[in-house]
Structures are given as structure tokens and as C-alpha cells.
């Protein structure tokens, strides 16, 4: 599903990712761990096509994300991936269901029933008509997940999805990810949280821009 | 405390330099708009009135009665600008005229003796008066105020002549070069004008037949209309003073009569009525436009400041969260907006200085100077508006901190 080959990302003289290579199989759950500033989010942004590498290749499904232009990357994001951010990044003045429908609109056509179904899946159908800015952190993250999965992407990328949540909401969100994984979604999660890594198939550690324990498979709990 | 306040305000301005610059630019543009247009409006009425008063609107003639006809002299013309004439400053121009019949190319022609452009000293002041100083008349052959040969003639537009005129007056024939052609749009287009001294030499006629006067007048109101219809006899002392001390055409004619008793003062009503009507209409419009400009400028400043403060709500929320009082937040905003106003006032001053000059030159062909009081007022306006804008924002500051930070 994902192939990274000698990927380097540099901001000026600062090397954030230094010759990273990795591979993720379809249906796999990979957790990326590392201290702050190690390059985890940059790696996720590169896979998502939000940013481009300084050198190296990135393949996702059949697309060489590192070689395509702006518009093609936008199309790739619409069709192939769903992204969940630590800061949720919902449009604050749209309701929960409208935030989900917005992703549909950008993909094809908005369908309220489908959007409601996605919200039901994350247990938020009763809060569908509340403004995003009025929802709690946990609720906002669930809306963000509903938005990420509404177009049924094969790959789900999440950047610290539980980083801003309390224990209860963290469990709810992780349950949703677990279900999605069970349904066959490929999931890449950047996290600090050991509990999250335990849910994954394997964990990649990243330190000073280098992936060190690539291929280490953790025991599933 | 105050030092820290300024430090944070300056730091905030530097960090959010684009926002700060945008606010300062809005305030500067709005203030410059106010200074420029207000200066223009304040001067427009008098400038347009001056533009309309470039032609004679009164004529002095010797007073006739059954027994005798009085005599007008050039001293009477000078007297119009003398200190004994109350409305001397509103007399823009005056020209003596004496008539004669002449012949040109074997045909009769109307001849008039006058001053072309004569420097006259009255009460220690020097004025240029004469036919060619009526700025509303079109001159060909030289600019208004340019040198004119006194031994030449000025011909009306309907007089078909080349570079010179062979003129016969009183049996004497002389050739005069043509200095200017004058298009007045009235009777004068049929005349050949001689310098008064040359005219006297040719005709031997000393007395004047007319004095043309261009006066700057004020549109009449009810009081002036009463004076025109019924005279001032029925006026109370206060009414008379109010009428006398306003430059109505009738009041100026009255003071001219006081100054030059042998004259009958005729107000050229076809001219003054039009002048009054246009000045009246335009002055009202200018006043209204001034008020509108003031509203526009104040709203623009208000909007800029409100937008700036709205965008800072989150930052203020954070300050409130760490214990800042409402007064402290208010003070913070006032300092920042005040700082922007200060920068803007300086920019507005420079901007309006150039704008006022160039715009007034373009509109009235005269470079106005922005009024000092107006500049001071415009510089103060942003500060005052800032305070009002921020008072409105107090409501926002009263909001729950959590609400703001959400």
C-alpha cells in the first residue's frame, strides 16, 4: 500500500527526514512513534501528499505521490486517503454533518443520509446539527474520523488522534480505529501513546529523522 | 507598568505587522480622505463663486434726473476699492467705460474708451482693474494679466479685423494694432475698445458713461428679497445690520451708492440671478457632501479598528485566562490602536498635504493649503474613533474567557 524509498525532507539546512525507507502492506496498522521534532508528522504529511520530499520516492497504492503535481496530489488525497489530525481541524462554522458533507462535496456529491450514517458509526448522529465549534474535543475528533472515512478511502492517516483527548474519549476513538482496521482499512498512526501502538501490527520508531526499528513487530494485545 | 504596556503593544504591532500596517493604512487613508475632501468643500463654494463672478454683474451709470445728469469719473472707479467702501473686498474688478461712435472700413462701429489692465493705487494698496481683468470673458492674443500695449485696441469678437484697425473717431483717423480679441457673449462683442487716455485724446470726452463692476455676491435669502422688493425702510436696526453686513447683490449695490453718490447702480439681474441660483444650489450640496465624507471616514476608521480588535479576541482571551483584568485588556487595545493612529496621523498628514494640493490644482487650478485646524482635527479623529470603537468592544471583552478561547 505504501512504499517509501530513500526519502529525504529538508527545510533549509535542517534535515527533518534522512533517507527514510519503509513499506506498509494493505490492511496493515502501522504506528509511528518518536519524540517531539523527530519528523513523525512530516513523514505523515509526505505520505498524505500534503508536502513533497526533497528527494526519494513515495508510492501509495499505485500512485507515486512524490512525482505528481499539485492538482494530482489533491485528487489523490480525495480518493485514496482519509486524514485525522490532532487538532481535529474541522471548519468551526459548519455543523458536524456539514463538515462530513464537505468532504463528500469535494470528492463527488454531498449526501446527507450517508453523512449521517458515518456520524452514527462514530456515535455522533445525535449531535449532527451542532456547530463544530460547540462540540467537545472528543466529539470533534469523532466528526473528523467520520469525515476521513466518508469517501471510503483505503488508507487512513492519523496524526496523534488521541493527543488532545481524555481517557474516555481516547477509548472511543481507538475503538473506532480498531473497527475500521477490522474492516480492512490500512491505518498509519503517528502517536506518543504506547496504548495506541499496542493496537497496531507494528511500530516504526523515528529519531532525528531516521527510522530506526523499522520492521519491528509488536505483540498484539 | 506603562513601559511594559508599550513594550507589549509595540511587540504585538511588530509580530502582527501586516494587521497593524493594514489598520494604520485604513486610518491614514480615511483621515487623508477627510482632510482632502473637507478642504476642497470648504473652499469649493468660494472658488466656484469666483469662477462665476468673472463677468460684470453691476453697472454704474450717471444718475439722471429731470433737471440734471451727474458725472462719473475714474476716481469713482478707484473709490470702489477704497476703505470708505464697506464691500471693497468683494469688488473683484471694475472698468470705466465711455462711449463714442466711430468708423472702421467705412462702416460705423461702436467705440468705447476703458482701462485694459490698469494698476491702480488705493489707500496704499495696489490693484489691477480693467476690461481684460474680467476672467469670465474669453481673450485671444494673450493671457489674463499679461502685458497689453496701451496704444493698441481690444476688439470684440464680432468685429472683423486683422492685426490692425484703421479707426476714424471724431474725424480723426488712426491705425491701431489689435492687442486682444474679447469674446464676452454680450453687447461688448460689437465694440472696439481704446485705452481711456487715447479715447479722450481722440474724442475730447472726459466723463464716463458707465462703470462695469464684477462683485462677489451671496445668494439672497428672505431678508435680501424683502430689501429688493420693498427697500430697507421697513427694516429694524438689527435687520438692517444683518442685511448690510452680508454681501447680497442689493447690499453691495447699496454700499456702492453710498461710496459713489452720483452713480445709479444697476444690478444686472440676468447675471446675478443665475450666479445666486448656482451658488445656492452648490453650497448646500457641498455641505451635505462634507457631512457624508465625515461619516465615511469615521466609519472606515471605526471598521478598521473593530476588525483589528475582533481579530485579537483570542489573544485577549489568553491574557484574560492568565489573570488580566478587563481594564488591562482595554488598555492594551487602546495602546495598540492608539499606536496605529499615531503612525496613521503622520502618514495622513503627508498624504493629504500632497493630495489637497494636487486635487485642488486639478479641480480649481489653484493649489489650496490644507487648513491647520482641519489637519489637527483629522489627526485627532482616529484617536477619538478608537475610543468609541473600543467602547463598543467592551461587550466583547465581557465575554466569558472560555467562549473567546474556544
Amino acid at each position, binding site marked *: 500500500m505504501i512504499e517509501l524509498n530513500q526519502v529525504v525532507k529538508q527545510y533549509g539546512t535542517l534535515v527533518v527526514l534522512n533517507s527514510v525507507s519503509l513499506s506498509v502492506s494493505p490492511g496493515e496498522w502501522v504506528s509511528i512513534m518518536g519524540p517531539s521534532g523527530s519528523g513523525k508528522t512530516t513523514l505523515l504529511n509526505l505520505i498524505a501528499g500534503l508536502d513533497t520530499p526533497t528527494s526519494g520516492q513515495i508510492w501509495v497504492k499505485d500512485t507515486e505521490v512524490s512525482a505528481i503535481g499539485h492538482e494530482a496530489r489533491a485528487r489523490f488525497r480525495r480518493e485514496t486517503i482519509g486524514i485525522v489530525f490532532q487538532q481535529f481541524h474541522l471548519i468551526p462554522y459548519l455543523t458536524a454533518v*456539514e463538515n462530513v458533507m464537505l468532504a463528500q462535496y469535494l470528492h463527488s456529491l454531498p449526501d446527507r443520509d450517508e453523512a449521517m450514517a458515518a456520524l452514527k458509526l462514530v456515535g455522533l448522529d445525535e449531535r449532527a446539527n451542532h456547530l463544530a465549534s460547540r462540540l467537545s474535543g472528543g466529539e470533534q475528533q469523532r466528526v473528523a474520523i467520520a469525515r476521513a472515512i466518508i469517501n471510503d478511502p483505503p488508507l487512513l492517516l492519523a496524526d496523534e488522534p488521541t493527543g488532545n483527548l481524555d481517557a474516555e474519549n481516547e477509548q472511543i476513538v481507538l475503538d473506532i480505529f480498531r473497527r475500521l482496521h477490522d474492516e480492512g482499512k490500512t491505518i498509519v498512526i503517528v502517536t506518543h501513546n504506547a496504548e495506541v501502538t499496542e493496537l497496531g501490527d507494528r511500530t516504526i520508531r523515528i529519531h532525528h529523522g531516521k527510522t530506526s526499528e523499522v520492521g519491528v513487530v509488536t505483540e498484539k494485545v | 507598568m506603562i513601559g511594559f504596556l508599550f513594550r507589549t503593544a509595540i511587540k504585538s504591532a511588530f509580530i502582527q505587522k501586516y494587521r497593524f500596517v493594514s489598520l494604520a493604512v485604513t486610518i491614514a487613508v480615511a483621515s487623508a480622505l477627510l482632510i482632502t475632501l473637507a478642504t476642497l468643500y470648504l473652499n469649493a463654494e468660494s472658488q466656484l463663486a469666483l469662477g462665476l463672478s468673472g463677468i460684470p454683474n453691476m453697472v454704474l451709470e450717471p444718475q439722471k434726473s429731470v433737471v440734471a445728469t451727474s458725472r462719473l469719473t475714474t476716481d469713482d472707479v478707484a473709490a470702489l476699492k477704497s476703505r470708505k467702501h464697506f464691500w471693497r473686498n468683494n469688488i473683484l474688478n471694475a472698468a470705466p467705460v465711455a462711449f463714442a461712435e466711430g468708423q472702421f472700413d467705412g462702416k460705423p462701429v461702436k467705440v468705447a474708451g476703458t482701462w485694459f489692465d490698469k494698476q491702480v493705487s488705493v489707500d496704499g494698496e495696489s490693484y489691477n482693474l480693467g476690461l481684460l481683468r474680467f476672467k469670465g470673458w474669453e481673450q485671444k492674443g494673450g493671457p489674463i494679466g499679461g502685458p497689453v500695449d496701451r496704444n493698441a485696441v481690444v476688439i470684440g469678437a464680432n468685429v472683423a479685423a486683422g492685426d490692425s484697425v484703421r479707426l476714424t473717431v471724431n474725424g480723426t483717423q488712426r491705425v491701431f494694432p489689435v492687442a486682444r480679441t474679447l469674446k464676452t457673449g454680450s453687447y461688448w462683442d460689437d465694440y472696439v475698445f481704446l485705452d481711456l487716455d487715447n479715447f479722450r485724446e481722440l474724442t475730447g470726452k472726459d466723463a464716463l458713461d458707465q462703470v462695469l463692476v464684477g462683485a462677489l455676491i451671496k445668494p439672497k435669502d428672505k431678508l435680501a428679497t424683502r430689501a429688493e422688493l420693498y427697500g430697507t425702510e421697513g427694516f429694524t436696526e438689527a435687520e438692517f445690520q444683518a442685511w448690510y453686513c452680508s454681501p447680497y447683490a442689493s447690499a453691495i449695490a447699496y454700499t456702492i451708492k453710498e461710496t459713489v453718490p452720483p452713480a445709479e447702480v444697476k444690478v444686472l439681474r440676468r447675471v446675478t440671478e443665475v450666479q445666486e441660483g448656482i451658488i445656492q444650489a452648490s453650497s448646500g450640496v457641498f455641505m451635505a457632501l462634507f457631512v457624508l465624507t465625515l461619516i465615511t471616514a469615521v466609519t472606515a476608521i471605526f*471598521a478598521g479598528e473593530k476588525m483589528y480588535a475582533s481579530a485579537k479576541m483570542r489573544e485577549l482571551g489568553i491574557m484574560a485566562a492568565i489573570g488580566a483584568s478587563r481594564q488591562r485588556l482595554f488598555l492594551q487595545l487602546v495602546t495598540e490602536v492608539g499606536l496605529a493612529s499615531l503612525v496613521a496621523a503622520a502618514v495622513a498628514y503627508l498624504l493629504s498635504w500632497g493630495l489637497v494640493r494636487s486635487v485642488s490644482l486639478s479641480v480649481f487650478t489653484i493649489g489650496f493649503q490644507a487648513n491647520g485646524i482641519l489637519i489637527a482635527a483629522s489627526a485627532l479623529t482616529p484617536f477619538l474613533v478608537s475610543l468609541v470603537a473600543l467602547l463598543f468592544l467592551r461587550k466583547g471583552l465581557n465575554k466569558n474567557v472560555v467562549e473567546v478561547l474556544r
Partner: protein
Amino acid sequence: MLFRVVSASIRHRLGLYVPMLITIIISLALLGAAEIVGVSFKGIVNREMEKYGANVILIPEKGEVVNEGVPVQVRNTRLGDAEVNLAMANTGALLAMNPGWLVKGEGDVLVGSSVAAQLGLTRDSPIEIDGIQGKVAILESGTEFDAFVIVNGEAAQPSMVLLKTADPAQYKGKNAIILEEITRAKYGFLESIRRLMLYVALISALSAIAVIINLARIDAGERQKEFGILGALGALPSTIARFILAEFLLLSGFSAVLGLVFSMALSWALVALTAKAWPALSFGAVWYVFGTALASFVLASSIYIMEFRRHSIVEEIRGE
């Protein structure tokens, strides 16, 4: 969906948009009013020019019949011991043609002010001239007629015909005196007014644009974040541009319509109350108001779009 997102965005930004819209609408109103007032002024000046009265004095050739204007027959006669100029004309038509003339008194015989002063005649005193009896009304016209006594009657053999015409030039070459002394002053005046109004309009447009740029800068942080989110969800730059344009078109349409309505109201108030004339909506005003509104908001959207293109999505999403 586009409309839903755009309207929600506008609602969300009311705190920013309301003061901005008020300023823009007032600026547009001033701009439109300047144009309408500028155009109306010509009408006002022309109306005032009517007071100028007769602008052609035609001296008919012998036997020439003139079927227009007010014919006046002049002759000398005696009034008491004095010799006076008597003019016979339709006095009603004469006064209607010359609204600037001042008539003092209710009498039916118009005695020019010079004659009245010379002979000591006062208003409403009885008069008999050439067998015609009547009461004196003093005429102050500021013209040669001040030296006449004018009685109402038919001018069978007119010595002159007074005309008021929009095209006095047609009488050039005829035996006519053409009076247009204030015409040049009028054109100079109108030109000054036109320029003044142009500057009012230009400076108001500048003020509108300054406010909009202010908005674009102030709101840039939050906007960028939104654009970043849309970009992360796979929106093309063109889709984002569509969102921005739709929002600003809506705002510009709203401001333009209200600006035009206020322009009309303002110019009506300005012209009707101060100059007692009725302004008509000029095509220029519609054009300027809509043009400026559109141009200002397109400028604002361009700033947003350029900002969006300048940053990467990662920066956008952080709101940098």
C-alpha cells in the same frame, strides 16, 4: 453545498463583515451619490440658467414676420413734461420669459427703474400714458428696459423680438444681439464640479479598497487554516478559489445593491433638499458602484488566493 459553506462562512465572520460592509456600503453610496450629483448638477445649472431670460434680441427686417418669442414695439412718447421710451408688448409673456426681472407693485404699467427714479414715480401710483390708464409697477431688470415704460398690448410692428433659445448660434449673421455671457462661466463651473465629484468618487473607492484589504489581512490567519483543511481534504486550488469568489461575489452583490440604494437615497436627499431638484439614477452611477464593489472584492479574493498559493498546505493548516 457551496452556498451552504459560503453562507455559514459569512455568518461566522459577521463580526468582521458587518463593520466592513457598513463602510463599503457608505463608501459606495458616497461614490454613487457623487456621480449622480455630478450629473444632476448639469440639470440644476441649466435650471438656474433659465433665470438668465431672453438670450437673443432679434431686430426684424422691414416686413419680416417672426413667429416666435415676445415681440416688442418701441416708440417715443410723452409722460407729463418728459419724453419717455414706450414699449408695447405682452407683459405677461415678457415677465415669464425673464424670471430674473424684479417687479415691484401690483400695477399693470411697468415703469423701468431709471424712468421711475428720473420722474419720481412710485409703485402703485396711477399713471396715464398715450391714453392708457393704469397703475405703476416698477421694473428692475438690469437691462435697457429699465429706461422704458412697458404697457401690455399687441406689438403690431415689432421693433425687436425677445427670444429664449437653446441654440442662440442659429441667429448669428442675422440682425440679432446674442447674449450668452454666463455660458463660459457655466461650462467652467460644470467642469470643476465634474472633477470634484470624480475625486470624491475616487477617494471613496480608495477608502473602500483600503477597508477590504484590511479585512483580507486581518482574517488571513484563520482563512489560511480553513484553506489548509480544504486542501488536506483534497480540494483543488480552483475549488478553493471558487469558495472565495462565491463568498466575495455574494458580499459584493449585497454591498453594490445596498450601495446603489443608498446612493439614490443620498443623492435624492442631497439634491432635493439643498438644490430643490430631482436627481435621476444615472447609468454611470450603477456602473461605478457595481464596478467598484466587484473590483474591491475581487481584489480581496485575489489576496486570499495569492496567499493560499504562496503557502504549502502544511503551513496553511497551521495558520502560518
